[in-house]
């Protein structure tokens, strides 16, 4: 999520220019499977789990993760989406609108929420997501799963499950999808 917003709000916008493919589609699929097993193991079962993907980068990953968890555990795993536009700490500083409507399945009180995002960067998006989640009820616990942790944290946020740790320069960009992870730069238009 952080990556996408940076790309969008470069002065006058910019174009993502890929440089090197860090993970392939198979690598991403394997990472999701591994994370799913880690979730089951850490929580000793997933009877009260809800998987929430952050708009927009976390959504396809969250859906895939929920599918894999269902296959492993053999029980239905509810999933939803969360857009944090209204909870950001930089409203009025950077212009961003909600990308899509939030869709949380039911009340989250007492549930185990696994928040899923594509890239963990400054941590501000996740902090906004935690604020948003609080408005849906008091979860039993919130755990964070990200495909890529690229460092440069500005808030004390740490992931519980990571696909790949990837140190980056602050001006680089990371693009994540089910097709793979690509490192590149944003070139101003």
């Amino acid at each position, binding site marked *: 999520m952080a990556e*996408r917003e940076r*790309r*969008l*709000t*470069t002065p*006058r*916008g*910019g*174009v*993502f220019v890929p440089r090197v493919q860090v993970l392939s589609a198979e690598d991403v699929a394997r990472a999701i499977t591994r994370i799913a097993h880690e979730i089951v193991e850490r929580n000793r079962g997933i009877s009260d789990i809800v998987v929430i993907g952050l708009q*927009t*980068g976390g959504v*396809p990953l969250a859906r895939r993760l929920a599918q894999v968890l269902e296959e492993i555990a053999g029980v239905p795993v509810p999933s939803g989406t969360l*857009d944090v*536009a*209204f*909870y*950001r700490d930089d*409203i*009025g*500083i*950077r*212009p*961003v*609108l*909600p*990308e*899509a*409507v*939030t*869709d949380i399945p039911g009340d989250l009180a007492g549930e185990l929420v696994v928040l899923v995002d594509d890239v963990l960067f400054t941590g501000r998006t996740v902090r906004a997501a935690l*604020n*948003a989640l609080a*408005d*849906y009820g008091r979860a039993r616990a919130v755990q964070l799963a990200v495909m890529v942790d690229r460092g440069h944290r500005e808030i004390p946020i740490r992931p519980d499950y990571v696909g790949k740790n990837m140190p980056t320069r602050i001006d680089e960009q990371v693009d994540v*999808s089910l097709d793979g992870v690509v490192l590149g730069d944003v070139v101003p*238009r």
Partner: protein
Amino acid sequence: MTAEPEALAEEQDVGLVEPEISASETAAAGGRRHLLSISDLGAYGIEEVLRVSDAFVEVGKRSIPKVPALRGKTVVTLFVEESTRTKLSFETAAKRLSADVMSFSASSSSLKKGESLRDTVETVAAMGVDAFVIRHSSAGAPAAVSRWVDASVLNAGDGWHEHPTQALLDCYTIREVLAEREGLAPGEAGMGCFKGLRVAIVGDIRHSRVARSNVLALAALGAEVTLVAPGTLLPPAVETWPVAAVSHDIDDVLPKIDVCYLLRLQAERGAGRFLPSIREYSSEYGLNARRASALADGALVMHPGPMNRGVEIADEVADLPRSVILRQVANGVAVRMAVLFMLLGTPHGQTPTGTLASLGGAWESGSA
């Protein structure tokens, strides 16, 4: 010095003066600090507002319908022309965004004591205001205020001129209802439902800011609008309006439309100067039960409120399932939240990004 005054003919700065750039043009150019007219938005802008409104409709469904998005911002409602409903809708919207709200109405002491609008506005602005929501009986008053203060200005209705948020919530309602029929959630609906949509606006068009804003919005979105009114209640130069047709015969128009939008007839119009009587208006143009049954099956009935039951709309018609008037009201808060968020959540001079590259923005949308 020759007899021919060629020197005068060159570079004469006088001659027809270029019209001043209107405040609404400034609004568009500067990243939409103000919403004074639907023309500030254009088709892209309207679409953007509707999409953001989807998100706020979801917020409205929560048990605590509140987000911290505008925390620390101050929104002042300044209703020099009274309106309880619209004022309440705006104030609710601002509060649900966690903004601080101050409220002035025509009966507020300072305006009543004859303090000029400019002095009132400047005094209030000095206390630190991020947005003014203004309703005034004089067209152009919000434009004037936008020249006097540094805050964002939102036009909540200025004389006969415009009422942009009304048109926006009306468009939102149309899109929502038509999407429901297709089994789509509003977030999944596009803007295609407006192309070729046949809308009739019936009533006192001449004096109606709701009509002007709706005509501009619907025309921008590709709908076909027909104006239906007696001759005295049509605006001057109506041939220049972006409408498909003008009619004096409501019975001829009703079977051929998808939306019948009724305007409220103010009592003073029927006092014998514009119309012979309210009764004649009602019999010639009122949407009674007989006329409502002449509407196509899927046609909607809309009204900006408050209704004069028995005048422009019959009692029983107002309560028909095809009448979406209450949904219009319900959507008003979400749409006004969207507009406030877009005005105040955007730094001055920048255009917001989002699902769309709005207003011809020069960046990729990027998201998959």
